[in-house]
């Protein structure tokens, strides 16, 4: 099964990289660029038949390894 995991840094946590990218865009003349946040998406093939079970397992993977629950939120989409 194909699973898509979106991992976003929580809005209240600073994102210095995003700030630097925004500055660079401005220098290149893209002055319309506002706040920039750098996040991640993980595409994963997961073996399994039951989407509900797969989702539960992947959420477990997120909590244990893929996401950092202290500063990030995650979303899992199966299929």
């Amino acid at each position, binding site marked *: 099964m194909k699973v898509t995991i979106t991992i976003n840094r929580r809005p209240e946590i600073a994102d*210095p*990289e995003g700030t*630097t990218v925004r500055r*660079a865009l401005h220098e290149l003349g893209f002055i319309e660029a506002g706040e920039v946040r750098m996040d991640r998406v993980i595409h994963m093939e997961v073996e399994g038949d039951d989407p509900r079970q797969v989702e539960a397992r992947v959420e477990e993977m997120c909590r244990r390894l893929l996401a950092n629950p202290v500063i990030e939120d995650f979303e899992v989409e199966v299929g």
Partner: protein
Amino acid sequence: MMKVAVVVFPGSNCEHDVVHALETMGGVADLVWHRDTDLSEFGGVVLPGGFAHGDALRTGAIARFSPVMAEVTRMAESGAPVLGICNGFQILCEAGLLPGALIANRDLSFICRFVEVEVVDTETILTRAARDGQRIRIPLNSYEGNWVDPSGEGRVVLRYIGDPNGSQHRAAAVANQTGNVVGVMPHPERGSDPLLGSADGLILLEGFLRSMAPA
């Protein structure tokens, strides 16, 4: 003797080391700021290691737009020696002056240790003073040292003995077709004093200095 320009981007950190090593060899080097737009008084240019623009986005991605890069490109096209070390290598790739790109090391960890490399091409500004097959021991110090080259055009100059980071063809240094633009991942300037473990890097810097047109 012609002077070497050592470019300082915000976030560069090896610039003083490069100047020091070049001076040990009798070279003359000046720091230039990434916003400088005139390098006409220099015979060659080094983009030193570090974390230009904090490596935001991709390493080297933002630095390639620095105003000084137009001059670096001009010098590259004129045949002057242009050397990118570590982060400088990454910038040269992003700028399209060297083929390929640098991605994260195979094992996803920063590697700081001595490595051995073998000279496989002596017709470049970095290896002019070296022998074919010569082994050189200098420190590697990078997280994104893994060169990939979908174009297949890259000219490998130095090859790792072993495979520390997954780099294609085990390339530790790569040149453009004319051999005057070279990117090297390990640091020649860190192998510039036996007291620090090796002076092999001087062979490479010697090649670079020799490649500058006489003033």
